[in-house]
């Protein structure tokens, strides 16, 4: 098996294969949890934690897990770490937990985690898988934070619940929900445009 370069693996998840803007995985927590910066960041960190440890364990056990029942095995490993996150958050961050409860338990079915388990952790070394989990997780966290920043600023004029723009006309809850879709769509388009520009530059050279 060829050895992957750590740097390549790391940058892969962060930019080249950014889970949200390029692979378009895990859209549910993306849209639901990026209403403000704090939630987006917390969701990103929680997912990163699960991603790193599930990748690590799956790649350690990749030779033991029988091929036919691999998906249920992956799900059990993933849900173990999701339960850990749930219990830790309930104890130490009860306020945040109560608003994010639904989507914390839905990390189990987050496509990013299962996709990485299936396409990366199940056929790579443990160390590489940990790096992959870390980079995918950070890519996810970064995208969620950017979205959270934009959405929080434009819906309520605050950042981290600190008022930035005074007398900002608050957006209604229902339209703020619809705005979530638009924000994600526009960010994705902007990301695409950047990639098109980069590709053009490379073509010219």
């Amino acid at each position, binding site marked *: 098996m060829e050895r992957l370069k750590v740097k390549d693996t790391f940058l892969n998840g962060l930019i080249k294969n950014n889970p949200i803007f390029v692979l378009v995985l895990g859209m549910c927590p993306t849209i639901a949890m990026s209403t403000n910066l704090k939630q987006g960041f917390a969701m990103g960190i929680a997912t990163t934690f699960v991603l790193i440890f599930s990748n690590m364990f799956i790649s350690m056990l990749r030779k033991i897990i029988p091929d036919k029942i691999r998906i249920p095995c992956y799900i059990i490993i993933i849900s173990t770490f999701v339960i850990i996150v749930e219990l830790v958050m309930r104890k130490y961050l009860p306020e945040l937990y109560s608003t994010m409860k639904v989507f914390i*338990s*839905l990390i*189990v079915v987050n496509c990013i985690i299962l996709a990485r388990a299936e396409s990366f952790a199940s056929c790579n070394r443990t160390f590489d898988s940990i790096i992959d989990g870390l980079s995918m997780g950070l890519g996810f966290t970064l995208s969620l934070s950017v979205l959270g920043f934009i959405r929080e600023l434009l819906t309520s004029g605050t950042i981290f619940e600190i008022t930035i723009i005074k007398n900002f006309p608050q957006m209604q809850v229902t339209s703020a929900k619809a705005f979530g879709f638009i924000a994600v769509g526009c960010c994705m388009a902007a990301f695409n445009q950047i990639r098109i520009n980069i590709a053009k530059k490379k073509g010219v050279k």
Partner: protein
Amino acid sequence: MSIVLIIFTALIADNIVLSQFQGICPFLGVSKKGSTATGMGFAVIFVMAISSVFTYMVYYYVLVPLELEYLKTMAFILIIASLVQIIEMVIKKYSPTLYTALGVYLPLITTNCAVLGTANTAIDVGYGLLNSFALSVATGTGFLIAIFILSGIREKIEKTDVPKCFKGFPITLIAASIMALAFAGFSGLFA
């Protein structure tokens, strides 16, 4: 809450996709064509309805007596995953026509967060068996409505000249946001 209210709220006012943001992956992924979208929608209703009964039973008759509520997430996802497998086998054996219609979409449903999300919601709110069944069917139908409308819009978008960077998912998300606005109009209706 009365059962009629539960159904209408889940169906339109608090639509699973457009208002609760669950099940967005299949909503964006398999909405390219009307026929596949409806296939997915019906498969979701089917699995949701059956899984709601099973998750209810397991939660109240197994997990609660054993005081293992914290294992809810793991138990539910395993129930859903195995149910999907069993349903797939049963349909394959007894109804080949239904299998060819739903077959491809069934395995995808395991990772549809709407199914797990609805099972969780029914438990968190504390609904009885009948109410959680109604909630699941209505939620699934809400999903079908949303994905069907979106597929219609996407078929039209295919024929239009969209800026290059907006092609594919971005323009679909923007179409979805306008749908969400339309559905949001119903939100005060049943409150």
